[in-house]
């Protein structure tokens, strides 16, 4: 035990100076502590993700360079082609962050991929002043594929039902969107959106019919207000 003559307090330490005022301490009993009161300081490990950082850097560099080249060499015929690169790079980052690095639930990854890909194709379609192929064909089949994949995982693997059910739910909901667009005459070709919508409705119905307590409880838990 040591003592600070200035603060008039005892200090339990191996230090030579007072931790409060830095005055030299008087040793009361010449006894040394076996170990410090708290664990020794050590430099913390840096928690940075080099892989993701380089991906962000490369993506942003690519965006800036293509935008620059596009602006400098702009002509009517080529138009703003750099937007294709921008949106692809954005998708690339989502892919790395939420599908490769993420250790989340596979169903979640599938749904995020489905949404990101849908946005990508819709934007590309829009920039190209194209015919609306993205929401006519791609989005319905993407949602169908993702719902089917989640459904198959659910049926074949013995995993916890409740973890997947919500993602299946949202995937099915997105499957209905192209059909709603068709109702409002925004989609010209019926069969792809109808296929996706029918698939969604049938699975919804199956869920309703076979819904056991677990699904209902899960929904109550996730959506309690």
């Amino acid at each position, binding site marked *: 035990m040591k003592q600070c003559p200035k603060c008039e307090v005892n200090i*339990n330490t191996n230090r030579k100076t007072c931790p409060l005022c830095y005055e030299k301490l008087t040793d009361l009993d010449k006894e040394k502590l076996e170990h410090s009161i708290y664990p020794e300081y050590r430099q913390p490990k840096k928690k940075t993700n080099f892989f993701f950082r380089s991906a962000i850097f490369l993506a942003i560099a690519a965006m800036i360079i293509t935008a620059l080249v596009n602006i400098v060499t702009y002509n009517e015929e080529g138009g703003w082609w750099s937007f294709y690169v921008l949106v692809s790079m954005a998708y690339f980052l989502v892919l790395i962050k939420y599908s490769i690095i993420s250790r989340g639930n596979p169903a979640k990854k599938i749904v995020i991929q489905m949404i990101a890909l849908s946005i990508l194709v819709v934007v590309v379609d829009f920039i190209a002043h194209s015919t609306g192929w993205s929401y006519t064909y791609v989005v319905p089949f993407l949602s169908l594929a993702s719902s089917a994949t989640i459904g198959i995982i659910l049926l074949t693997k013995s995993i916890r039902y409740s973890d997947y059910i919500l993602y299946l739910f949202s995937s099915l909901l997105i499957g209905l969107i192209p059909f709603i667009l068709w109702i409002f005459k925004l989609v010209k070709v019926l069969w792809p959106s109808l296929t996706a919508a029918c698939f969604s409705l049938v699975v919804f119905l199956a869920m309703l019919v076979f819904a056991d307590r677990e699904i209902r409880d899960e929904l109550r838990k996730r959506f309690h207000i």
Partner: protein
Amino acid sequence: MRKWYRLDNAGKIFPSVSNARRANLFRLTITLTEEINPVVLQEALNITIKRFATFNVKLKRGFFWYYFEENKENPVIEAENPFIMEPIFSREAKGFLFRVSYYHKRIALEIFHALSDGYGGMQFLKSITYNYLLLLGKDIDSENMILSDIESVREEDQDSFVKNYDSTIKMDRKEQKARHFKGTFYENNWLSLISGKVKEAELKEVCNQYDCSHTQLLVACLVASAYRSQNLLEQKKHLFQVFVPVNLRRFFPSITLRNFSLYVRTKFNIDKEISFPEIVAKVKEDFSEELQKDKLQARIVANVKWEKHFLMRIIPLFMKKIGFKIGYNIFGESANSFSLSNLGKVDIPSSMKKYITAIDFSNGAGYVSPMNMGVVGYNGDITMTFASRIIERDLQREFFRILAGLGLKVTIETNELEV
């Protein structure tokens, strides 16, 4: 089906406003007479966690609210980290919202505030220690003070805030910005702890002299030391506001292990000169004004009202989070200059006392209000622990010098980086 719980009224705010710089943890430690055996401690934790259902959870995101879901993993103990109250990263902790660690003779429990308050945390740590000592074959008896030995009851996971809600009571809520301490922050999120131990009997004598409670005396000493360390206070017109949590179980019948505390605030204009007895008188006055059952209940009602509001309930969680952050900046940390939390005396069965040498309590500090103090009493000792994010320690120095000046014998320990 896994069990799930809503977060309690006070806990609801924490998941939204916590981050690496503001972890909202608090820490309780029990020091034993012998070196800790990690294998036995792990076993003791495995046994204890089964009894404490509200701690055996992970935080999940619903569409409208966060909720706790039963955690099927086993919590793992670790060697104590030199970085006190480092944020708990859910993935590394297997989703658990607390951390049990050991260092030589000490068992430390660090808990996320959304789970419980100091009372609940202490019950948990006491039970871990009890099971640990039992596993070592010590001859101890729980004497009806250790929850591990008492069958759990439903009231333990009650949200006592909601229980004491009464929609007929009206209450306005006004919070003022407080004057904060400013200083040089430690690097790497380091938190410095400086604790001082005094004898309860000596403190009692001083309290009798001023006719006040322990907490009131310590708050007064703290205010007096703030007067003497004005160089650390920001140059603003705001008042110096000390935040003192109050355990509501003292006022309302409840045995919940979740959050059930409110606070009183005492406010000073630091620019005006004031004598020590005057400070004590002002603290006593503020306390007696706020610490009345009907006033406390009115504040409980004000707190519960917002979570019962229909609009509040149907806003999706991601939007709520934004609102919570704004609200917390107005009503939360920035309304406190300093927080002084007194857990009171810890009851330990007499047969266990000979194995336990010390109990400590401290709170994690944020960066808006970078210093605070936790106080706890055990076996005739009172330990006051300053936690601080800033390197300057004028406040701590003045505080302990004032205690020494009052005739108390203070013993200090720190987790200081050795210079």
